[in-house]
Structures are given as structure tokens and as C-alpha cells.
């Protein structure tokens, strides 16, 4: 409540044009100048009178101060004030915009408004937060979710932000699927665009081309299945074999996700393209003309497998490690051999991980944009079609929205298929009871092919990265192979002058911005993601399923659509954040949050509820339980969420391309500019540097987060596992 009053009385109500973090307003006529005044001063001066009704709603809860929590009036007051205050805030925000009234009927009702307002700033933010928590506290006092203030507050908070930053912009954008050229709504337009031949054509069955929808679906299923298998293989190699180079394998599998877009595509072209090293070599060997076989499904598939297997690995490693050894030992004691144990005990217990890994691979493939762009050839997929519907020669936002809807439908399908497959079984293996077993080794019939696949993969990845590093040191990749340092110098030159170091390289600007934004987005993403996962697995509330799908929404939709929908939604009041760093941070949080949620859910469904219960019985509240019991057991999931969101913030491109501005330029959009301009050397040199930086950051995060200690004994033969950080 204090927060709410502070928001209303002390800090400026409206956003400051100089930026969210500029404090110049303290000296510029504060608190009376209309641009920087807090809400209270505005109202007292007779300006912006529509802010006045906020006062009673803020004052209302004062009545509740003296009352007891179980008093009926206490809850009623809080709920009323919170809900009405929040509703009023939203209503005034949307109806009064930058040019006065936003909605035509209000103008006819009240006549034109001589005033206008800009986006909400600190004040609005704090007041909105206060109203939200009045409301949730009221509901908790009513007895919802056992009257647990933390849980209700968290649910309210997550629902509010997901609604504002996911549902609102996306629905806003998707509505345009039904808008005709002269801005009227029509279902005919939708049907016409939806039944387009380019979308659903089945020409490929008879030698022609298939529609983008089919292409995307086939590709996504292939990628989802193959990345899950590969991810499982790596997870097994790392946890359950005597393989010696586990650490380097771990690093190797992480490499592809920290690689900026286009770089893998370029490397694949140099290896397998028409003039690629390997294509030429094989063509000479069997005496055929080198062809363009890589362009299309094969190329995109290879690139996406390289890029997304690590995500499956990150999800699965936690799950594979989490399977309780005592169950496996029990099976062995009952005379099951290793193979049977693996097939009937270990594998079924990994099902939540497998399902989540498949879902992520499927969605990632659907939304991937860079690889199909470089390697797609004539293999059109939805994500590239969406991008060019928006930026192409035919600006057709409606078509983009229709395509996005199709894409969403596929994702929704995959999501429910996953739920159906998992069913209602329990996958809990980590309980409060001591579990000091050691995972059995894989059966040898399985371990040999598993090691073989892992080996081939490792060599392949290594080759790709050697090519990339080499590429950053040559004059002109593929044409002039003289070694040079000049790309690094252009990008990262610095001078030691009188005023200290001067960063003269052309890449520094975007480099620092990217680092800053990624460092901000990563912890926030992990927090929001894990809290959401906790709510979804541990608490029951109405609308949970819809909410769970909602959290996946921003991830499933291609970045381009997110980018444009964010501009459409947040360029105008009440939330006006385009052109700032905040919009980038926000878009990263909500785009990458689902990975935190998935990893969290996968790990949490393995934690026995009795752990929570015993903590609660011992008098801890649910916040303490979350902090002291669940969180430490979730370290692998936290790490996955942190690493993923940090890395994604540094390498994402498709959403970012619309959201970058002069002050906040990101590394990837700089790299793309270079690629467009033929500066492959510079682009690759910059990418290589980013890879090194991210590797360092990932290592640092691993040290910071630390390792879960689940008290398992380490057998002599498997000490190397204990050393792995």
C-alpha cells in the first residue's frame, strides 16, 4: 500500500522521454511541471482529472488496516479496491491516448478532449502493482489456495504480466487476420487467406512443391523427434557410461546454442554447398557434378539438429540425473538385467523429460527463422513466409496473422499430444527419503551405438566450429584464404589514450548493449519461469491449463510476429516502451520464459510432494518452502533457464530486428547488417568473439549456481562424475 501511495505522490506519473533510467526529472521542475509530476500533484493542479478516481481506491485499504485477516470486511475492501482501481487504471489508459480520446464513441459522448497523455511511468507502474496486490491479498484473505498470500500473490502477478506482455500484444496482432483492406472485420478474408494454395498445397506428392504448412509440420516433427533422441543419447553418455571425455562433450553440445544465427548456416554451405568442401570431395570421388542438394529440407534439418539438440540435452540431463537410482537398483535386485531395467524402469521414468524435449524441439523448429532463410532453397516454411508477409514487397499483415494462427494451431496440437502421452501417471522419484544409490551403467548393447552416435556428432560439430574459427581469420571466406587479424581489429580495436581506454572498434557499442540487456534478462527470465513452473506443478487454481498454454504462447510464435505485435501494442499509451532497452528485456523475458517453465516443470514433477508437505508441517510458509526446499533441488533447472535465457538474449534475431533502436542496437542485428553487406569475415569474427564471451558466461553461471547435492554415494569407478561442475 505504501508502494501505491509512493507511486501516486512521489514519482512522476508518466514515462520520461529521456528513458526509464534517466534521473534528470529530479531537477526539471519536479514536482509541479506537468511532464514529470506525480499523479497527486497533477490532480491537485486540476490537470489530468481522470486520475482522480484512483485516490479513493488507494485510500480504501486504509479502512482495512485495523481489521483482522479473517474479518469478512477486510477481504471485501481489498478485493473491491484492488479490482476497481486496476480496472480504472486500464480503462483510462486505453481510452485517453496521445491524441486525446482513443475510442470514437467516447468522443461523441463527452466531446473532444483538449488534453492528452503519454505512457505510464514509475508512478503508474507502482500504483498498478499496489492494486494488484490489494486484490490478491483480498482473495487470499477470502481463503483461496488455503489463504496463502505468497501463492495467490504470485499467481496474480504472473497472470498479470503474462496477460500484458503475451496475450495482449499477440491477440492484438492476430485480430488483423480478420481485417480487410478498408479496415473492416470480415471472416471471408480469413477464409480466403487460410485456404491459400501456397499454404496447404500437396504438390510435393506429385513432384511439385508442398505448401508451407506441410513443410513446417514435417520439419518440426523430424526435428523434435531427432533432437530428443540425440539429447537423450548425450544425457546417457554423460551420466551413465564410462566415457572419458564427458566434460568436453558437455561443452561441445552447448556450443551450438551459443552460436549467433546465420553462422552455422554459412558453415554448412561452405561444407555441403554446391562449391562446398565435402560436396566437391564426394562428387570427385564418385564422379558426379556437384549439386545443390543441401538447399531445402536436408540443409535446414542438419542446421536445426545442430542448433536445437543442446536444448533437448539441457532438459534431459536434469531428468536423467533425477531418476532415482534406488528404483533401478530395486529392479536389478529383482533380477532384471541391465537392459530390462533400462527399458522398463529408467526410460518410462524419463517420459516427462522426453515429452518436454520433443515439445521444445518441435516449437523451436516451427519458429526458427535464420536457418530456413539461409538454407531453405525452395522449401518454404511458415516462419520465413510470415517474415516476408510483413517485410516483403507485399506488406500483408493479415496474411502474416493467418500464417501465425496456423503455426499456433500446430503448436497447440503438439502441446496437447504431449499432455495426452504423459497422462496422469506419477513420475516422482526424488523423495524426502535418503536415496544414496548410483545410476547403473547402460546395457552394453545400448552403450556402443550410443557412444558411436555421440562420437560422430562430436566430430561433426567440431568440424563446423573449426571452419567458423578459421573463417574469422581469413581475408575473404571461400575466395581468398590469406590469414589476417583485420576483422578482429575492425570490430574490437581499442586505444589507450589520455582519458583511459577508448573503444574505437565498430562493434563495441552493440556488444556492450547486448551484454547489458542479456545480463538483465537472464535472471528475470529464470525467476519468472521457475515461479510459474512452481505454480503449475504445485498449486491448483482455476484456469491452470489455459494459463500453462499461455506461457508457451510467446515462445511458439515466431519472433517476427512478436516483434511487430510488440511495436503495435507498446508504441502507444498506456505502456509506451518502444525505442527503449526495456522493450528488449521484456521481449526476451517472455520469449525465453517457457524454457525455464519447461525445465522447471520437468524437474519439479520428479520432486515428491511430501518434501513440501513436511516443510509446511514444520511451520514454514510456502514462500520459505519454495526458497529453502524446492529451489536448491532445482539447480539444474535454474542453470538451464539462466544459461538459455542469457544465450538467447545474445543470439536472438527475428524479434529483435524490429525492436532495436539507435541507442539499443544488438549484436545480432549488427552481424546481419554485415552479412548483408558481404563482410562475412567481420560477421564471423564478431560471432566467434560472442561465442567465447558466452562460453565464459556459461562457465561462470555454472560456478555461481553450483551443483545439486542429492546425497548419492559415488562409487569408485565413477568419480569423474563428481568432478563435473
Amino acid at each position: 500500500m505504501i508502494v501505491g501511495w509512493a507511486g501516486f505522490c512521489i514519482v512522476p506519473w508518466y514515462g520520461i522521454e529521456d528513458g526509464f533510467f534517466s534521473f534528470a526529472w529530479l531537477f526539471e521542475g519536479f514536482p509541479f511541471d506537468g511532464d514529470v509530476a506525480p499523479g497527486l500533484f497533477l490532480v491537485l493542479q486540476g490537470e489530468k482529472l481522470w486520475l482522480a478516481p484512483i485516490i479513493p481506491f488507494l485510500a480504501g485499504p486504509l479502512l482495512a488496516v485495523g481489521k483482522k485477516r479473517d474479518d469478512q470486511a477486510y477481504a471485501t475492501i481489498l478485493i473491491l479496491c484492488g479490482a476497481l482501481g486496476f480496472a480504472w487504471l486500464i480503462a483510462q489508459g486505453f481510452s485517453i491516448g496521445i491524441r486525446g480520446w482513443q475510442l470514437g464513441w467516447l468522443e461523441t459522448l463527452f466531446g473532444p478532449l483538449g488534453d492528452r497523455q503519454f505512457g505510464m511511468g514509475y508512478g503508474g507502474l507502482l500504483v498498478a502493482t499496489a492494486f494488484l496486490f490489494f486484490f490478491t491479498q483480498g482473495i487470499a484473505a477470502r481463503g483461496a489456495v488455503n489463504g496463502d498470500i505468497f501463492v495467490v500473490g504470485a499467481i496474480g502477478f504472473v497472470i498479470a504480466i503474462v496477460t500484458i506482455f503475451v496475450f495482449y500484444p499477440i491477440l492484438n496482432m492476430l485480430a488483423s487476420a480478420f481485417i480487410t483492406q478498408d479496415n473492416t472485420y470480415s471472416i471471408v478474408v480469413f477464409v480466403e487467406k487460410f485456404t491459400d494454395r501456397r499454404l496447404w498445397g500437396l504438390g510435393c506428392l506429385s513432384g511439385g512443391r508442398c505448401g508451407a504448412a506441410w513443410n513446417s509440420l514435417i520439419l518440426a516433427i523430424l526435428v523434435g523427434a531427432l533432437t530428443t533422441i540425440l539429447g537423450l543419447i548425450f544425457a546417457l553418455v554423460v551420466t551413465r557410461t564410462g566415457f572419458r571425455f564427458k566434460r568436453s562433450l558437455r561443452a561441445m553440445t552447448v556450443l551450438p546454442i551459443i552460436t549467433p544465427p546465420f553462422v552455422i548456416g554459412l558453415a554448412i554451405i561452405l561444407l555441403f554447398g554446391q562449391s562446398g568442401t565435402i560436396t566437391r570431395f564426394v562428387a570427385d570421388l564418385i564422379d558426379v557434378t556437384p549439386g545443390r542438394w543441401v538447399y531445402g529440407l536436408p540443409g535446414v534439418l542438419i542446421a536445426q539438429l545442430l542448433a536445437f539438440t543442446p536444448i533437448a540435452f539441457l532438459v534431459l540431463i536434469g531428468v536423467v540425473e533425477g531418476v532415482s537410482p534406488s528404483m533401478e537398483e530395486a529392479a536389478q535386485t529383482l533380477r532384471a538385467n541391465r537392459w530390462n531395467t533400462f527399458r522398463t524402469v529408467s526410460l518410462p521414468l524419463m517420459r516427462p523429460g522426453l515429452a518436454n524435449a520433443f515439445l521444445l524441439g518441435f516449437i523451436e523448429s516451427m519458429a526458427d527463422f535464420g536457418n530456413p532463410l539461409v538454407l531453405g532453397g525452395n522449401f518454404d516454411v511458415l516462419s520465413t513466409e510470415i517474415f516476408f508477409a510483413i517485410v516483403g514487397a507485399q506488406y500483408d499483415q493479415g496474411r502474416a496473422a493467418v500464417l501465425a494462427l496456423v503455426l499456433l494451431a500446430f503448436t497447440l496440437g503438439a502441446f496437447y499430444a504431449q499432455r495426452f502421452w504423459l497422462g496422469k501417471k506419477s513420475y516422482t522419484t526424488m523423495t524426502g527419503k535418503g536415496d544414496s544409490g548410483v545410476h547403473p551403467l547402460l546395457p552394453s548393447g545400448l552403450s556402443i551405438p550410443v557412444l558411436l552416435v555421440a562420437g560422430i556428432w562430436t566430430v561433426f560439430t567440431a568440424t563446423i566450429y573449426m571452419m567458423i574459427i578459421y573463417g574469422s581469420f581469413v581475408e575473404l571466406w571461400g575466395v581468398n584464404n590469406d590469414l589476417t587479424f583485420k576483422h578482429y581489429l575492425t570490430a574490437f580495436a581499442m586505444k589507450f589514450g589520455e582519458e583511459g581506454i577508448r573503444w574505437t572498434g565498430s562493434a563495441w557499442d552493440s556488444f556492450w548493449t547486448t551484454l547489458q540487456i542479456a545480463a538483465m534478462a537472464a535472471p528475470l527470465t529464470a525467476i519468472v519461469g521457475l515461479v510459474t513452473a512452481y505454480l503449475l506443478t504445485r498449486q491448483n487454481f482455476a484456469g491452470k491449463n489455459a494459463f500453462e498454454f499461455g506461457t508457451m504462447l510467446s515462445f511458439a510464435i515466431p519472433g517476427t510476429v512478436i516483434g511487430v505485435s510488440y511495436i503495435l501494442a507498446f508504441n502507444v499509451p498506456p505502456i509506451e516502451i518502444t525505442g527503449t532497452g526495456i522493450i528488449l528485456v521484456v521481449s526476451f523475458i517472455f520469449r525465453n520464459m517457457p524454457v525455464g517453465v519447461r525445465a522447471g516443470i520437468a524437474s519439479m514433477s520428479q520432486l515428491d510432494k511430501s518434501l513440501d508437505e513436511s516443510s509446511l508441517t514444520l511451520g514454514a510458509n510456502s514462500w520459505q518452502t519454495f526458497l529453502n526446499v524446492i529451489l536448491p533441488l532445482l539447480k539444474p533447472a535454474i542453470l538451464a533457464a539462466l544459461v538459455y535465457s542469457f544465450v538467447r538474449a545474445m543470439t536472438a534475431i527475428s524479434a529483435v530486428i524490429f525492436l532495436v533502436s539507435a541507442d539499443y542496437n544488438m549484436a545480432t542485428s549488427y552481424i546481419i547488417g554485415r552479412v548483408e553487406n558481404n563482410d562475412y569475415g567481420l560477421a564471423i569474427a564478431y560471432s566467434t568473439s560472442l561465442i567465447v564471451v558466452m562460453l565464459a558466461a556459461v562457465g561462470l553461471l555454472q560456478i555461481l549456481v553450483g551443483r545439486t547435492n542429492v546425497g548419492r554415494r559415488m562409487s569408485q569407478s565413477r568419480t569423474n562424475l563428481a568432478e563435473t561442475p
Partner: protein
Amino acid sequence: MRTKYTGIVVLAAALAASTAMANAAKLTFYCSAQEDWCQSMARGFEEATGIDVNMTRKSSGETFAQIKAEASNPKGDVWWGGTGDPHLQAAEEGLTEPYVSPMRGELNDWAISQAESAGDKTIGIYSGALGYGYNEDLLKAANLPEPKCWKDLTKPEYKGHVQMANPNSSGTAYTTLATMVQLFGEDEGFDFMKALHKNINQYTKSGSAPIKAAGRGENTIGIVFMHDAVKQAVSGFPIKVVAPCEGTGYEIGSMSIIKDARNPDEAKKFYDWALTQEAQSRALDVKAYQVPSNKGAKTSPSAPDLSSIKLIDYDFKKYGSSAERKRLLKKWDDEVSTLPQ
């Protein structure tokens, strides 16, 4: 609540130090040319006037999408560079502001006619002719004759060797389509596109991709703007540039002032400055081989010489309009892209 606080504290701590206040004159500049050219224009204008420039570089399609999305609350002031079609489209949709610059006397006729066809809402700043380039090494390796004309590209021996962009996604490819329609007449133009379709190995998404693929040896012939091909050749790739013998169309890179800009006076200053001889000669420093619209600006010897190329009388008003564009693209979709290859 704690999450919220942690978030705000982290946010504030990380950025508090990094921002500064600025109340001086400033200009938000959307640039759709290549990165270093954009930089050169932004810095040059800062030096010439002392006005702070915030430059954002995006392709012309992306910039158009952004300006359209921002229309109710424009953030940009002036949009410079990129092919003329999206500028014309922006003018048609009322996203840009009419302005008659005092500099018009120094400009080539084609730049002025671009402005006139859009009700003074845009103006030509450079132009470039359409053509194609081929990879000499690959052509030799495949024992193919050197193509000289548009019609050469439809010969069966070039099957699988030609690349162009998809006119649905690329302005370059749409210019190609419109050029053929104007050069050969609509029926014959579409016959040409159908014959060409048999030889195409890929319709790329972006306009300059075919020649970049040719540079890397991934494709033999790419249909692009000639200055893009020249750039590849100058960068060291084995590319030869061809001005087709039948004549060809061209694009006019344009500049517009965004409607309801926040800094309209600075935008006009930039507009006038960008049309000067001095500003346009900057293209040379960044290896941009387009032909500048100011008659006095310097040109490069490697640039395609427009006076020696047969140029058609390209009707920007007709072929830049949304209706005609939709009609031609639909016809291409229905009649050309569905043919077997």
C-alpha cells in the same frame, strides 16, 4: 512482491549509470542503405549541422513495416535510402509528409519525376539499373556460353543455373517482373517469366541473395541490381556484371519525411543536406555504386554507367501502385510459380 523488487533493483542498477540527458537538437534517422553508408550519412550530417543523429538501419521492407506500425505515434523523423517502391507505398498510405526542397534544381530529372509521382512525399536520391551477374569460374566449369541478353537466360543450357528473388518477398524481383512487362509487353513479358522459370534453381527471399550465392560459388547467374553485382566483383569474388542487350529497368532509391515527425525542422535540414553534392559524394567512400541524383556528385569508374545502358521508360507511378502490384503478383503466382520446372 519480492520478485518484482528484485527485478526493478537489477534493472535500475544495471542501467542507472549508463544513460545521459540530452536536450540538444536531435534527429531520428531511419536508414535503409548498407550499414557503413548509413553511418557515413549520419556522422556527415552531425558534422555539417551539429544536430545529434540517432540512426537505425533496417532493410526498406522492415522500415516500412515499422513506420506503418508506429503510425499513430511516430518515432522516426526521416527515412533515407532503400528502393523507391516502399517509399511510394508509404506516400500512398499517407505515412509520409510532402516537402519541396530548394535543392531540386541540382537534381537529375528522374529524381524529380519520382517526387512528382508521389505528390512530393518522396524524392530520388540514387538510382541503379537492373541486370545480372555471373560467376566466371562456374560458367567456365560448366562449359556455358557467356549470356549477354535477357532472352539468353531462357535457353535450355542454363537450366538450374539461374537464381532470382521471389517477387512476393523482394522489391528487386518485383522490379524485374515489372521491367519485363514494360520491356516486352504484358503477354510476352509473362512468357519470358515462364521460360525463365524453367531455368531457375531457387527463388530466394531477399533481393541481393542470388548474386551473393553466385559470389560464394553456390549459384551461376543471379538476377539483381547491377550495383549489387559490381560490389561483389569489387569485394574480390569472380563476378562479371552484365547489362542486358534488350535494355532494362531501374530502381530509384528514395527519401521521405515521416508524417507527424517529432523533429520536423531537423528532418527538413537533413533532407536538403542529403541532396547536396557533398553528401551524395559520400557514396564513393563506402563503395556504393549507385548513380547519385545530384548532377554534380562524383561517381566511381567501376559504377555501371547509366548513359551507356539502354534504359526503359519505367512508369513508377503505375507499377508502384498497390493495385497494379497486387494484380501482377497474383498473375505471377497463378501462372508462373505453379508451372513444373
